[in-house]
Every structure is written in structure tokens, then in C-alpha cells.
């Protein structure tokens, strides 16, 4: 079957849905595909807030927001892009407010703001600690009001081009039926999320963050940049890697070692705090987040999710007890290179959200800038892709369809258990391509990734059924993850000096 639209969007998180709204508003026909359902993306897990220099709580300025972002980026951000994002932040929050996002309010009826790490002022607008959830759901509701077509449980296999190499569509696995489908479009926007799950259980992310779009873009010839910049969040629950939001430290939470001593500035940027914790752990210390002094009322009001998760996964009640934590992979700054129109290095292909690299985070993203990025650049991707699609929609060209990625996978034998390998890669990456790296570790990791890739033909699926085969989906994800792993390590090897999240000794 063959489906056509002006703009095809892959991914239905905050970035994809924002892109869809703006593309549709520009007059383009829009179709969104998601491998899950539209409200289940990583966006719903963002808790702390969304940065905008509204100065609602204390003095602040767009210039200060820019300066903080550039400083945290360690010289690896593009100043023009950062300037654009920070300047647009105020409009972005106003837009979200106008469509019904229920931001928390101050006593004088303004949008409330809290301080997150690396910020010189309380700048993050929030909705308790459900900021991402409430933003995502409201954007989704807006998409419904505009009757935007969203097709669920469609898994991207390959990006398709015409004979001249222009991107014209995508090849997709319908997870429910097991059928392969072709979607044609004059422009394709990737909004498919990051790749933190290459660290497997050592990640705060949804199990869906497997870098599918990045791997598909790379196979199609798009350029990836800064893949070595992986952000480790300082405070995930020790055993389950469930995120305890930075807002816990923003509200005044302390980090303590086994001796009950504070050892770092809790509100330094994430790379600094993660390394400080890592050093303590290497000295044999256990690390705890202490929010007891904040009191039950504040915890219930501002951090209800944190309390619930700590009880469920660590059997501790943070009102009375310390929360055991460790840093784990949380956000991937690297991704598909895009210009200031969100266009990738391939004609017809646009990208936004965590899979894209607009060079606004550089080597270390500030808390509160990811929700901002998806709204600001989701809009840009939607507007620019729609403009391009409407300009080129009458051009005659034929999709090139050939066997590739998926057909290879179907041929794989099931002799080696890829679930065990997936876990192994995650642990190996946490150790060797983690918070602190050496050239030797990186080189041995690359060797191991290549060996695993070479034996993929023996790791196929044992479930041979066609309908809703998650064994197959997870295997394709694993193959994508290995492709991404290779890019991460290769880029890390090339960068010989420490820079932000890439810390080499």
C-alpha cells in the first residue's frame, strides 16, 4: 500500500506534534506516525520545567538565559541558534499557555518559575513535577482539535529517496499486522527521540528511546554530529534508574555521601554533579539525595511523583528517609545535524527534538532547555518542511524501493540471545563510554560493538508470528542501537580532549 501526504512526521512526542500543528497551519497536508501512541513519548517524562526568561519570580533576562546556555555548552553550541531559542522561549510559553497548559502559578497570578542547575535565575516554568506530561497532553489535544491524522504503532524502518537522492518518504512496519507499508511525502520530519537506551538499564529513559530515527537517517546518508555527548543525570534511583527530577535539588535538596557529608554544589551543571557523584562512588561511598528538610507539605505539593517513585522502587519515603541515587544516561545531545531551518544534510528531510542536533545544547544541556527546544524547533521544522513541501509537491519523481535493512533482519538465525547482548552492551557502555572515559576503554568498546554487529546474523528472533511481534521490534531496535553505539564511540575516540559530558582522562 502507498500513502501520500505533503509532510510526513515520524514521532509523536512534543517535537513531532508541535511540528504537525505548524505544518498544518501552513496549509500542508500532514500525517504523523508513531511507534507507540502519541502521549507515550519521552516528553511525558520531563518533570522539572521549561526555561523562559519571564522574570516572573525575580530579575532575569534573555541575555542571561543565553549566557547560561552557552556556558553549559562548553563552546560547542551555535550562538545564533541559542540566541534564537532563548529569544523565542517567551513566545513558546505564551503559546502553550494559550492552548491550555496548566502551568503552576505564583501568588500574584503569574506563571511560577523555579531554579534548575546552571541557571542564574528561577527560569523554569513548571506544572508541579508533571511539566512534560501536561505540555505533551495539551499539544496532543490541540492536534485533535485540528484533526491531524496520527497513526499509531507504526515503526520506521527506512527513509526513502528518489533517484536524485531527495527524501520522499518512509518504509514502515505496521506493528499490529506485521505488514510493510510505504508512506510517500514531499517532506519528511524526523522527531523520533534520543538514544539513551543504548545504556540499557543504566538510563532514565523510556524503553522506546532506541535511536531508530537517527540510525535510519544515518543509513540514508544524513550527517550526525556530537554523538559522544551523552548527558548523565545525577539523581536516578540507584537500583531502577528511575529519574528523580532536578527540581528536587532546585527546591533545596542535598546530596550526601555515606558519611552524611555534602560534597558538591548541587546546582552546578549536570556533568559536574554527575562526575562529583561518580568520584565519590569510586571511593566506595554510597550517594543519597536528602529532601527530608523540605517537609512533607512541600514534597507533596511540588514533588509528588518523586515521593511515589522512591517508595515504589527503593522502599524509602523521602519525607523521612534518604533516597539512594546514582547518575545514569538521561539525554543525548548528539544527533542528526540540522541547519537553522531544521533541515538535515539531505534534501527533503527535516529533524527536531532529541533526535536532531540544532547545536543549542553543545556538550551539556541545561535542565529546562529540552522542553523549550522541542516547542521552538518543532515549530521551525513544521513551518520549513511545509514550505518546502508545498513548493516541491508538483515535481515528478519516483521513490526508489529496494530490499535493505528489514529484509536482512528477516534472514537472521536465532542462535545467540540478543536480550543478553543488549544488557551486556548497556553495562559495557556505562563502564567504558560513561561519565569518565579513557582512549583504551573507547577503543575496546568500539571493537566489541563491531564484533556484535558481525554476529547479528545469528541473533534473530525466536518469535516467528506476524501479528504484534515485539520480539522482532526489539531486535530491530537492537540493530539500530548498535549502529548508534558505533557512532557514539567513533565520535568519542575522535574527540581527544575533555569537553562537557565527554570527560576523558
Amino acid at each position, binding site marked *: 500500500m502507498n500513502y501520500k501526504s505533503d509532510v510526513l512526521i515520524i514521532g509523536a512526542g512534543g517535537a513531532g506534534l508541535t511540528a504537525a500543528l505548524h505544518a498544518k497551519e501552513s496549509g500542508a497536508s500532514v500525517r504523523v506516525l508513531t511507534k*507507540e501512541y502519541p*502521549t507515550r513519548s519521552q516528553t511525558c517524562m520531563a518533570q522539572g520545567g521549561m526555561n523562559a526568561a519571564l522574570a516572573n519570580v525575580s530579575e532575569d533576562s534573555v541575555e542571561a538565559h543565553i549566557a547560561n546556555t552557552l556556558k553549559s555548552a562548553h563552546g560547542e553550541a551555535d550562538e545564533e541558534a541559542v540566541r534564537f531559542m532563548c529569544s523565542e522561549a517567551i513566545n513558546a510559553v505564551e503559546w502553550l499557555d494559550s*492552548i491550555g497548559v496548566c502551568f503552576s502559578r505564583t501568588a500574584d*497570578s503569574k506563571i511560577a518559575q523555579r531554579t534548575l542547575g546552571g541557571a542564574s535565575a528561577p527560569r523554569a516554568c513548571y*506544572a508541579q513535577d508533571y511539566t512534560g506530561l501536561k505540555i505533551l497532553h495539551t499539544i496532543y489535544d490541540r492536534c485533535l482539535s485540528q484533526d491531524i491524522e496520527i497513526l499509531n504503532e507504526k515503526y520506521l524502518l527506512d527513509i526513502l529517496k528518489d533517484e536524485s537522492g531527495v527524501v520522499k518518504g518512509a518504509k514502515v512496519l505496521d506493528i499490529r499486522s506485521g505488514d510493510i507499508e510505504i508512506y510517500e511525502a514531499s517532506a519528511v520530519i524526523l522527531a523520533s527521540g534520543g538514544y539513551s537506551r543504548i545504556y540499557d538499564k543504566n538510563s532514565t529513559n523510556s524503553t522506546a528511546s532506541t535511536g531508530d530515527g537517527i540510525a535510519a537517517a544515518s543509513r540514508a546518508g544524513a550527517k550526525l554530529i556530537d554523538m559522544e555527548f551523552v548527558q548523565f543525570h545525577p539523581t536516578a534511583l540507584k537500583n*531502577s534508574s528511575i529519574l528523580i527530577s532536578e527540581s528536587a535539588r532546585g527546591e533545596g535538596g542535598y546530596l550526601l555521601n555515606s558519611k552524611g557529608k555534602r560534597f558538591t554544589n548541587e546546582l552546578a551543571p549536570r556533568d559536574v554533579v554527575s562526575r562529583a557523584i561518580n568520584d565519590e562512588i569510586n571511593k566506595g561511598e554510597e550517594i543519597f539525595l536528602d529532601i527530608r528538610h523540605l517537609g512533607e507539605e512541600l514534597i507533596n505539593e511540588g514533588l509528588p511523583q518523586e515521593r511515589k517513585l522512591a517508595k515504589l522502587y527503593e522502599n524509602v519515603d523521602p519525607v523521612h528517609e534518604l533516597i539512594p541515587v546514582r547518575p545514569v544516561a538521561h539525554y543525548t545531545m548528539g544527533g542528526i545535524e540540522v541547519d537553522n531551518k531544521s533541515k538535515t544534510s539531505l534534501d527533503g528531510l527535516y529533524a527536531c527534538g532529541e533526535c536532531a542536533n540544532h547545536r543549542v545544547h553543545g556538550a551539556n544541556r541545561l535542565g529546562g532547555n529540552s522542553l523549550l527546544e522541542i516547542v521552538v524547533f518543532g515549530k521551525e521544522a513544521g513551518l520549513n518542511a511545509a514550505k518546502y513541501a508545498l513548493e516541491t509537491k508538483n515535481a515528478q519523481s519516483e521513490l526508489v524501493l529496494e530490499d535493505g535493512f528489514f529484509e536482512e533482519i528477516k534472514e537472521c538465525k536465532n542462535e545467540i540471545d540478543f*536480550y543478553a547482548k543488549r544488557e551486556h552492551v548497556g553495562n559495557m557502555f556505562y563502564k567504558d563510554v560513561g561519565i569518565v572515559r579513557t582512549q583504551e576503554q573507547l577503543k575496546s568498546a568500539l571493537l566489541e560493538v563491531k564484533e556484535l554487529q558481525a554476529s547479528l546474523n545469528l541473533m534473530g528472533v525466536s518469535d516467528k508470528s506476524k501479528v504484534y*511481534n515485539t520480539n522482532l521490534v526489539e531486535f530491530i531496535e537492537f540493530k539500530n542501537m548498535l549502529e548508534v553505539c558505533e557512532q557514539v564511540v567513533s565520535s568519542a575516540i575522535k574527540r581527544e580532549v575533555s569537553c562537557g559530558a565527554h570527560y576523558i582522562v
Partner: protein
Amino acid sequence: MKISIKREDNIIKYELDLKDITLLEALNYIKSNLDNTLAFSSGCRSSVCGSCSMRVNEREELACNYKVQDGDSIEPLKNMSVIRDLVVDMDSAYKTNFKAKAWLNKLTQGVSLNHDDEKRNEVQSDCILCSACYSACPVYAVNGEFLGPFALTRVWKYVSDKRESDEKSKIDNVQSNGVWDCTLCNECTLVCPQDISSKADIEKLRAKSAGYGYMDPSFGSFGGGFGFDGSPSF
């Protein structure tokens, strides 16, 4: 620990040598170690994405928010067609948001909201669309067109929002297969992992509807029903 999982028409028992884990951790263990063919959905592991909603001992739970016990019996959600094992087709459930027009009708700028305004629909905006309430709702057995608990909660969220300046059209839209079709049995409230009471929201929507001159159609046989003050008008 033994748990049983309903897979199509069969009940399959699995034995796990694990304790103090969530049901989702147990399912992941089964999937990667015991049986690669088991199908279920999951995502965030932290109760915000709504993917792993299923029934445990005949009650709706999020697998990531439930500590699994010996003897537990797991089955897919109700009121939706089963695609495979624990995976249901949620398209019909999601569609209720569209039919209920659960969004802000008219965008408003510069409306100032205070703490009370924020609290008015804070709980309703915690909804994660896991469809637990949709599965637990008995009305679907008799009316497949019912807008249902989470969509009506969402309508209340927007109706109660000061930024919505077209409240009446939202109320008009939930009269048929909507607020009056609910039996107020409260099953939705009992299973909501986010402590939302759709029943209470539906009652609030009924009160608003009465304010706009609507009345419970089941009182129609009284010949005129009840007046605005609640007294019967014959």
C-alpha cells in the same frame, strides 16, 4: 513465585525466582529469559506514559506501579479488542477524546490564573490516558458509543479552565452518549492510578449542563422533568 497470564484463550503459568519487583519487571524477565513470544506494552517504567495498563486479579493496574505477588493472574484490558496477549487496540479509546472535543475551543491570551484556578483542574490534568477507567467502565457493555470516563474528565478540565471562553459548545457536545449515560457506579475512580474521579467530573458536567437548560433524559417520562431549582415540574 508463580503468576498466570491470559494469552488469547489460554492461561499460561510462569514461575519466577524473583521477589519484591514490579509486575513490569516480571514481564520483562519473562520476555527476555523465559518466553520471547510474550507480547505486552511498556514505556517509561514510572507511571507517566500509561503504556503498561492491564488487569491484575480482575482489577486495572499499571504494571510498572504494581508489586507482583505469588498467584497473580494477569489479563489484558477490557472493552477494547485484544491484538495479542496483553496488548489491546486503544484506537477506539483514544478516539473518545476527539469525539468529546476535549480541547480548548477558543485560544485566549492574557487571562490571569491564580492558585485556585490552577487547583480547579490540576488533578484532571494528571491523566495519563492509560485507559484503565475505559476498561473498568460497565457502560460500554450496553453502549459502545459512550464518550467514557477519561474523555469526559478531559472535557471538564477544559470547561473548568478560565481560558475557555466557549463553555456552552463544550457542554452541548457531551449531551448525547455523554454525561447522562454514565451510571455513576464509580468503577473508574477506583482503578485510576492518578487518583482522578471521572465520576465526580461527570457530575460536575451534569451540573453545568443543568445550568444550560439540559436535563437528565431518563427523567423525560415525568413529563417535563425537573425545573432548574431541582423541583419536579408537571
